[in-house]
């Protein structure tokens, strides 16, 4: 599958269905900054879930701090108590799994969730850690050097930003 054929809006429709199947009565959606946070925000609305979503970023727990330094500022904002909650992490693109590992550590700095599950728009393969999503709207294998990430226009519509094609 070529990335050019990736229709982010169509995949989002699939993601809504997939996430609905993963919801438990007290699931809290937590979007991974930044693409995952946009998705979680829209999912919360489209699924009619109450309250605000959480946003989590990997800044404080990145494993490449030694070589790359501080990647940016921290955007983590968890407006609910994570203790005992079922947390559903949402991300746009799952690649090595390192960001997922970092945000799980970040999450546990706030308490002990009952469970943590992961749903993503695209699983692009290339995992370097034993991390698997419970749901992915698309799966493909991309060359390592190719960058793929979600973009959002002013009207809130999603598309993919592809570099190194």
């Amino acid at each position, binding site marked *: 599958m070529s990335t050019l054929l990736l229709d982010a809006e169509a995949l989002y429709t699939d993601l809504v269905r997939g996430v609905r199947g993963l919801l438990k009565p007290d699931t809290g959606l937590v979007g991974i900054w930044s693409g995952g946070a946009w998705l979680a925000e829209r999912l919360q609305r489209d699924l009619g879930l109450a309250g605000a979503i959480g946003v989590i970023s990997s800044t*404080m727990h990145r494993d490449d*701090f030694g070589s790359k330094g501080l990647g940016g500022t921290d955007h983590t904002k968890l407006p609910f108590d994570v203790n005992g909650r079922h947390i559903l992490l949402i991300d746009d693109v799952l690649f090595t799994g390192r960001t997922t590992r970092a945000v799980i550590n970040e999450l546990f700095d706030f308490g002990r969730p009952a469970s943590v599950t992961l749903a993503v728009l695209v699983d692009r393969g290339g995992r370097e850690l034993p991390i698997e999503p419970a749901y992915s709207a698309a799966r493909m294998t991309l060359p390592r050097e190719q960058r793929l990430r979600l973009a959002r226009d002013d009207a809130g519509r999603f598309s993919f930003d592809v570099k190194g094609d």
Partner: protein
Amino acid sequence: MLHKRNPQLNSHGELVHLLSIEGLPQSVIHHILDTAGSFLSVNDRDVKKVPLLRGKSVFNLFFENSTRTRTTFEIAAKRLSADVINLDIARSSTAKGETLLDTVANLSAMHADMFVVRHSESGAPYLIAQHCAPHVHVVNAGDGRHAHPTQGLLDMYTIRHFKKDFRNLTVAIVGDIVHSRVARSDIHALTTLGVPEIRAVGPKTLVPGDLREMGVRVCHDMAEGIRGADVIIMLRLQNERMNGAMLPSAGEFFKNFGLTPEKLQLAKPDAIVMHPGPINRGVEIASDVADGKQSVILPQVTFGIAVRMAVMSIIAGNDAK
């Protein structure tokens, strides 16, 4: 290789040491303040610690005593998961005749990753930065009368927090400016951040006229100095630094330049009052002002931890090359 013109920056213009605010680009200052904002929220977590400096050793080298500053650096380093070693240098090696660079060489052999340096001689942190191993980072925690950059940065964080924009502010720095490295760091930072009016307020003996060369308005009259100000930074009267007869008495100073509720009325109604601490109640500031609703002295302390976390994590993540 260090930046040719500014020894704090590497060839990419990234911060590898924090030695002085002088010469730091505005973008670097804003990056530090933005990063500090991230660390402020770490205090709200169950686990008030992040692992960025895990496995790194931070040595606090205080050649001049300062329990408060040393403690804030220690807290900041510990919240970044670093191992912190406090050395009371004033009473140990130097007293036995070891040179500054020999002390540093010995500590480097113990695998130090960062030195936080307080020294009574201006320029001591520069000397250490020039001679330490490339992977070692240096933070100036106050050198002589020269600079106290983390205090300057936390003051900027405080001003930005309460006033949002620097470009329309009048900031009055009041008191013992001649002995104050805080004042110097604040003036450099305020200038870089585009503050249009910076006033240095105090008696002629404590406010040198050459400050005008830094673009500062010098006021020897308190009323003139604080009238219409948005921010008032009170400085501590540094008794321990005053050798000559620069002042008739502390009481006389309070009468002329101490900040009282009456004098504070001259500033804007929403003016904030800052002080680097420790405060001398009844010498430079009245208790009613220090504890009043316009005082932001305690938020400064809280912000100071976050700013020091930001500085340490930024420099530790940047390569000397």
